[in-house]
C-alpha cells in the first residue's frame, strides 16, 4: 500500500469571513464552525479561540488534539468508520495542514486532564506548544449523560478537524512524502538481507474515557490485528482517551505516529519495515493473555526478526507491555519497548508496575511524577480554576510540601503528568530519564 | 537477605510460599511453604496435626541443609 502525504505548511491562523487556506495562512469563519458543531443537539454552547506558539496562553482541560487532513486521492475518507464510511484508507494522496491543530477543551467528568502552555517552562514538555491551535470549548445541554457528553465532544473535534482539513484539498502542497509498504512476498525480495521488523502498537481500551477506536470499532472488542502503517496516517485510529494527559495518545499522535515515521526512515536501509500489529489493553486479565498471545503469534507468522512495542496509559498497561515483550522474545524475536515512568516525585520509587528480565531494551519518555512550576499566563482558554487545576491528575488540593496546585497569582505547581503529551509512550518527545 | 547469609559463609535454606520469588532473590536451597499468611502452619488443622505439618516442612529444611547442591534447588518432597 502506498500513500503520498502532501504537507501544506501553515504559518498562521486567523478568524475571517471566508474559511480558506491562502499563502500559508489558515482563515476560519467562526460562525460556520459553530453551526457545524451545534448540529449535535447534545451541545448547548461552543466557542473557538486561537493559541499560537510563544503566546502567554494556557489551554485546559484539554481532551484531544487532532491534525487537519484531507484525502485528495485514493479510497476512503478521513476518520473512516467514525465520521465517514468504513472504506479502507491509507492509499492515494492525503493533504496535511502541517503546523495547525484542533484542540478540544472542556470538562467532561470529575477527572480533569491536560494542560497546554504556549510559552514558559510548561511549553517545553508538550509538543502542542509548537502548533498553531484552533481551540474548541464546548459544553453540553444540562442533564447529558457522561457517555453522551464524551462522544459529542469527540465527534465535534473530528468534524471540525475534517472541515478545516477540507480547506487544503485543492491547495498545492509545499512538500510531498511517499510512504509505501509492499506486500510480504515483495518485501522479502526487495530487502533479502535486512532484518524483518514490525511495530506492535498497544491501544488503551478499558471503558468510558479509556477507549480507542479503529475504523469505528471499539478496540477492546477486537483481538490483535494487522494494519498498514499508512492507514494510521489517514485517521484509522482515533483516541477516546481523556484520563492520562501525559501518556495517552491523542488522535494527533496517532496520525503522526513517530515509530511509524522513524521505521519508514530506516526502511530499506537498516530494517525491512513489514507492518503494524495493533493490540489492546483490556481490564480483564484473560483478555490481556489472549491479546498478547495473539501479538506474539502474528509476529511469528510474519517471520519477524524484531519489533518495537509501544504503550499507552498508566498502571495496568505495564502488564500488557511486559506480556507482549516476554511472549515475543520467547519466539526468538528481539524487542525494544517504549514506556514512561512513575518513579515518585523524588525519582526513588519503582518506575514500572511490572518488570521482567526479557525487557532488556527499554526506551523511556521520562518520570511523570516530576514536579514543575508553570508560571501564570495572561490568557486562559477553557478553565483554570481550582475545580480543574487542583483535581487534574498530577495536581493536588493541599500538599504538605507544595500546598495547593493553583496559586493566587495563577501559577500552577503540578506533576508533569498533568501536561498533555509530556511523557508520551510512542516516543514522540525528546524527554527521557536515567 | 538470603544471599547475604549465604555470602557470609553459612548454608541457608529458604522456606518460602512463593517459590518464584525465592528463585528471584537468589536462594539456593528452597522448601515451598503452605500459604502466605501461615507459611509453616494451617489454621484449619488441629493443634497437634498442625505441628506435625510444620515438622514435616522443617524435616525437608534439615534435609536441604545436609544435601550438597550445585545451584538453585527446590526440595519438593
Amino acid at each position: 500500500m502506498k500513500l503520498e502525504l502532501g504537507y501544506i505548511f501553515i504559518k498562521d491562523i486567523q478568524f475571517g469571513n471566508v474559511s480558506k487556506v491562502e499563502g500559508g495562512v489558515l482563515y476560519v469563519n467562526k460562525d460556520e464552525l459553530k453551526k457545524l458543531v451545534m448540529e449535535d443537539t447534545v451541545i448547548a454552547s461552543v466557542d473557538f479561540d486561537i493559541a499560537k506558539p510563544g503566546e502567554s496562553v494556557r489551554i485546559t482541560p484539554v481532551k484531544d488534539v487532532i491534525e487537519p487532513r484531507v484525502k485528495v486521492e485514493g479510497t476512503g475518507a478521513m476518520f473512516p468508520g467514525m465520521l465517514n464510511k468504513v472504506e479502507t484508507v491509507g492509499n492515494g494522496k492525503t493533504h496535511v495542514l502541517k503546523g495547525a491543530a484542533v484542540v478540544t477543551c472542556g470538562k467532561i467528568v470529575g477527572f480533569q486532564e491536560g494542560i497546554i502552555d504556549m510559552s514558559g517552562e510548561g511549553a517545553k514538555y508538550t509538543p502542542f506548544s509548537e502548533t498553531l491551535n484552533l481551540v474548541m470549548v464546548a459544553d453540553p445541554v444540562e442533564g447529558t449523560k457522561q457517555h453522551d457528553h464524551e462522544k459529542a465532544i469527540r465527534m465535534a473535534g473530528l468534524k471540525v478537524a475534517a472541515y478545516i482539513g477540507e480547506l487544503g484539498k485543492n491547495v498545492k502542497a509545499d512538500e510531498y512524502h511517499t510512504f509505501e509498504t509492499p506486500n510480504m512476498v515483495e518485501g522479502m525480495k526487495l530487502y533479502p538481507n535486512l532484518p524483518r521488523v514490525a511495530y506492535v502498537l498497544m491501544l488503551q481500551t478499558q471503558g468510558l474515557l479509556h477507549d480507542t477506536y479503529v475504523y469505528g470499532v471499539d478496540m477492546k472488542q477486537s483481538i490483535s490485528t494487522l494494519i498498514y502503517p499508512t492507514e494510521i496516517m489517514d485517521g484509522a485510529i482515533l483516541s477516546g482517551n481523556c484520563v492520562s494527559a501525559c501518556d495517552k495518545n491523542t488522535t494527533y499522535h496517532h496520525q503522526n505516529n513517530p515509530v511509524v515515521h522513524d521505521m519508514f526512515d530506516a526502511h530499506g536501509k537498516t530494517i525491512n519495515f513489514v507492518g503494524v500489529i495493533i493490540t489492546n489493553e483490556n481490564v480483564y486479565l484473560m483478555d490481556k493473555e489472549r491479546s498478547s498471545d495473539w501479538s506474539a503469534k502474528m509476529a511469528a507468522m510474519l517471520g519477524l526478526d524484531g519489533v518495537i512495542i509501544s504503550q499507552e496509559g498508566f498502571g495496568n498497561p505495564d502488564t500488557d507491555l511486559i506480556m507482549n515483550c516476554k511472549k515475543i522474545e520467547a519466539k526468538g524475536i528481539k524487542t525494544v519497548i517504549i514506556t514512561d515512568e512513575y518513579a515518585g516525585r523524588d525519582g526513588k520509587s519503582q518506575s514500572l508496575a511490572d518488570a521482567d528480565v526479557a525487557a532488556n531494551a527499554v526506551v523511556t519518555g521520562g518520570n511523570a511524577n516530576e514536579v514543575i512550576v508553570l508560571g501564570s499566563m495572561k490568557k486562559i482558554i477553557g478553565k483554570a480554576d481550582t475545580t480543574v487545576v487542583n483535581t487534574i491528575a498530577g495536581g493536588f488540593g493541599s500538599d504538605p510540601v507544595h500546598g495547593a496546585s493553583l496559586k493566587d497569582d495563577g501559577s500552577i505547581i503540578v506533576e508533569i503528568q498533568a501536561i498533555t503529551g509530556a511523557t508520551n509512550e510512542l516516543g514522540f518527545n525528546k524527554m527521557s530519564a536515567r | 537477605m538470603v544471599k547475604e547469609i549465604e555470602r557470609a559463609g553459612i548454608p541457608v535454606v529458604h522456606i518460602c510460599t512463593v517459590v518464584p520469588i525465592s528463585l528471584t532473590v537468589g536462594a539456593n536451597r528452597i522448601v515451598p511453604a503452605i500459604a502466605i499468611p501461615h507459611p509453616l502452619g494451617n489454621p484449619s488443622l488441629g493443634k497437634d496435626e498442625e505441628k506435625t505439618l510444620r515438622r514435616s516442612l522443617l524435616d525437608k529444611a534439615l534435609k536441604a541443609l545436609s544435601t550438597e547442591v550445585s545451584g538453585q534447588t527446590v526440595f519438593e518432597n
Partner: protein
Amino acid sequence: MGKIKVVHYVNQFAAGIGGEEMAHVTPELRDGTVGSGQAFNMAFGEEAEIVATVVCGDNYFSENLDKAKAEVLDMIKSKSPDVVIAGPAFNAGRYGFACGTVAEAVEVELGVPAFTGMFEENAGVEFKGKVVIVPTKNSAAGMRDAVAKMAPLAIKLGKGEKLGPAFMEGYMPGIRVNFFDNERGSKRAVDMLVKKLKGEEFVTEYPMPDFDRVEPNPAVKDLSKAKVALVTSGGIVPKGNPDRIESSSASKYGEYVIDGVMDLTEATYETAHGGYDPVYANLDADRVLPVDVMRDYEKEGKIGSLHGKFYTTTGNGTSVANSKAYSAEFAAKLKADGVDAVILTST
C-alpha cells in the same frame, strides 16, 4: 550571599581516632573539618565551607541504629547546613551503610540535600536508589579523586539546584531524573533495535533489577552438632513490637533473644508485617517462625542447638532483595556467633 554551609559525616577511622578497636565511639560534633574535610574545603575554594563534622564509630552506629541516627541528625540539624556530605566510605561496608543511612535520613527528615561516595562493591551501594552516591576507588588512597568528583556536587546541591541524571553528574545510576535527549524516543527505539538485531552493544534506558547469584555453601556435615539459627522476613516480634519495626519499609531488622523460649504464643509474640493478613501469625507465631519444632529437634538431638537469637524483618516477598546492607550485617553477627546453618522463613 555567604559561603555554602556544609556538614561532614565521617567514621572513627576517617577522623583519625582509630581503626576497628575504636569503632564503638559515640557520635561527636566538632567545629570545622576533621581529617579529609580539609581536602573538601580546598576544593570548595570560596564557594563553600565545612562548618562542622560529625564523627561516629561504625559499630556504634550499626548496633544502635535508631539511637545513633537520631543523635547524628540532631547534631547535623544544630548547624543548619545547606548540604551534608557523608564519607566517602570507599570499600568499608559498615561505613558505607552508615553514610547511606545518614544521607537518606538527612534528606527525608531534615529536608536538607545530602549525598555520599563509596566503592561500587561496597554493600552500602544498596542506597543508590535512595541517595546520590558518587563512585570512588576502593581505598582512602582514592581520596583526592573522590573529593574532585564530590565537591562540585556539594556546591550544586548546597545552592539548592537540582541534579541532572546520573550519567551527566557522575553519580551511580538509581534515582530517576528527567532530561531532554538529543533524539526523540521513537528514533532512539529504532536505533536500539537495530543494534540489538546486529548483536551490538546497546544501553537500555531503564535497567530491570539485576539478579546476581551466590554459590551455595557446602552442606552441613553433622546436624546433630550444628548450631542452627532462625531468621524470618515475616516480621515476627515480641508482643507490642518493642523496637517499632515498621510494617513494610524494611529499613531495619529486629534481633531478639529466645533463650528459654519453647513456644511462641498469642500472649508473647506477634507479627509487625503489613504485607499479609496478620490474624494467623498473631494467634500462633510458630506458623511463621517455628521455634516450637526447633526446640523439639534440639531435645531429640536432631540438631546441636537452636541459636539464642533470631532476626526478623518485614520485607515483603518482592523486596527481600532490598535489604542487602543490614542483612550483611546480621549475617556477620550470625557468623561471629558460630552459627552453622540458617533456616530463613518467608511468607
